[in-house]
């Protein structure tokens, strides 16, 4: 299993770049648990928004690239040091992704609209004062403004634009980001959602949610409506009840 994801000791670092942490591991675990579906899906173009250390995009490239050819990877970050570190991390694992210094996907939105099959995002999700959002350096990797939603809410419409008609989005959230509301917003854009990983750490409740375009006519092409062996299928209704359970759980543990 270890050869299928990036090795921590080969992940490069820089003082102004976010190092792989619980959230990064949760996102990679989500991709791993969905790996069979991803291989069946056979994406052509995969993208990470905000690649940081490169741990996630490198892991994705290792996961998919070893058994299929003809998958192309693109990663963006606003921080030039992050792109340098990602470049080193990719190289240390012998995989390649095209790297672009961009604000989310600036410069790519027009021509890449509808072309991306998989997008992965570990956004700046931490609730902070609004004026901490978008500052230079390491703070930009986590500062998410009110409810941690400032950057998340900018990324979602971009993802909608970039994703192909069968595209998948994997995104990490905190329960305090109000993910059930996000799922409802995405439903209005035609996406279904499923929780792939949920994890409580000492400080935060993390969720990785997979969104996919809900197009019944296409349902046979890529297994979108099939359930994985390990994860129960979550319809929107059950998402809601799950979120309320999570928040209930959280209030139970408010001493944390």
């Amino acid at each position, binding site marked *: 299993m270890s050869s299928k994801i990036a090795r921590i000791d080969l992940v490069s670092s820089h003082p102004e770049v976010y190092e792989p942490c619980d959230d990064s591991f949760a996102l990679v675990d989500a991709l791993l648990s969905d790996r069979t579906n991803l291989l069946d899906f056979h994406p052509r173009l995969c993208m990470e928004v905000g690649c940081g250390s490169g741990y996630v995009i490198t892991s994705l490239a290792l996961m998919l690239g070893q058994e299929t*050819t*003809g998958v192309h990877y*693109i990663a963006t970050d606003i921080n030039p040091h992050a792109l340098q570190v990602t470049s080193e991390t990719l190289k240390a694992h012998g995989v390649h992704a*095209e790297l672009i210094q961009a*604000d989310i996907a600036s*410069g*790519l939105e027009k*021509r*890449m609209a509808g*072309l991306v099959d998989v997008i992965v995002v570990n956004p700046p999700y931490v609730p902070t004062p609004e004026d901490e959002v978008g500052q230079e350096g390491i703070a930009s990797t986590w500062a998410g403004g009110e409810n941690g939603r400032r950057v998340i809410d900018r990324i979602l419409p971009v993802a909608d634009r970039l994703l192909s008609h069968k595209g998948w989005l994997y995104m990490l959230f905190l329960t305090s980001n109000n993910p059930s509301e996000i799922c409802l917003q995405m439903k209005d854009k035609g996406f279904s959602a499923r929780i792939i990983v949920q994890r409580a750490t000492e400080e935060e409740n993390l969720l990785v949610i997979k969104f996919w375009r809900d197009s019944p006519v296409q349902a046979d092409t890529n297994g979108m409506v099939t359930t994985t062996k390990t994860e129960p299928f979550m319809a929107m209704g059950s998402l809601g009840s799950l979120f309320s359970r999570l928040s209930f759980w959280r209030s139970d543990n408010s001493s944390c």
Partner: protein
Amino acid sequence: MKLLTHNMLTSTVKGVVNGFPLRIEVEKTLEKQVDFSADFLRNLFYKVDWKALVEAAQTMGYAELPEEAPDSTVLESEDFLKKFHYALLELHLEEGNLVCPETGRKFPVTKGIPNMLLHEDEV
């Protein structure tokens, strides 16, 4: 930066209408070997702006692609696919600039990474 990526990038400076294709100023190019996948290339063929690719490749010193957009019958030609593969995926711009066709704004490419960030007054 591959020419596939170049083919996907546009200038989004305020007031720009198309912003595509970005003109390439070459300081340094590289070749990086990439596994050949005919399937991948056939898929991309319909998504690439041909004229932009040909001009970019020529600027990078590769003039083997047909000037006129070929019809899809070329996708059966291994010779064509190999040239397409080389230009699109193996030829890299390592150092240089991407220049907005309308404003002349330069987006620098450093260590193969284009910087598409805009200044506040350009948004």
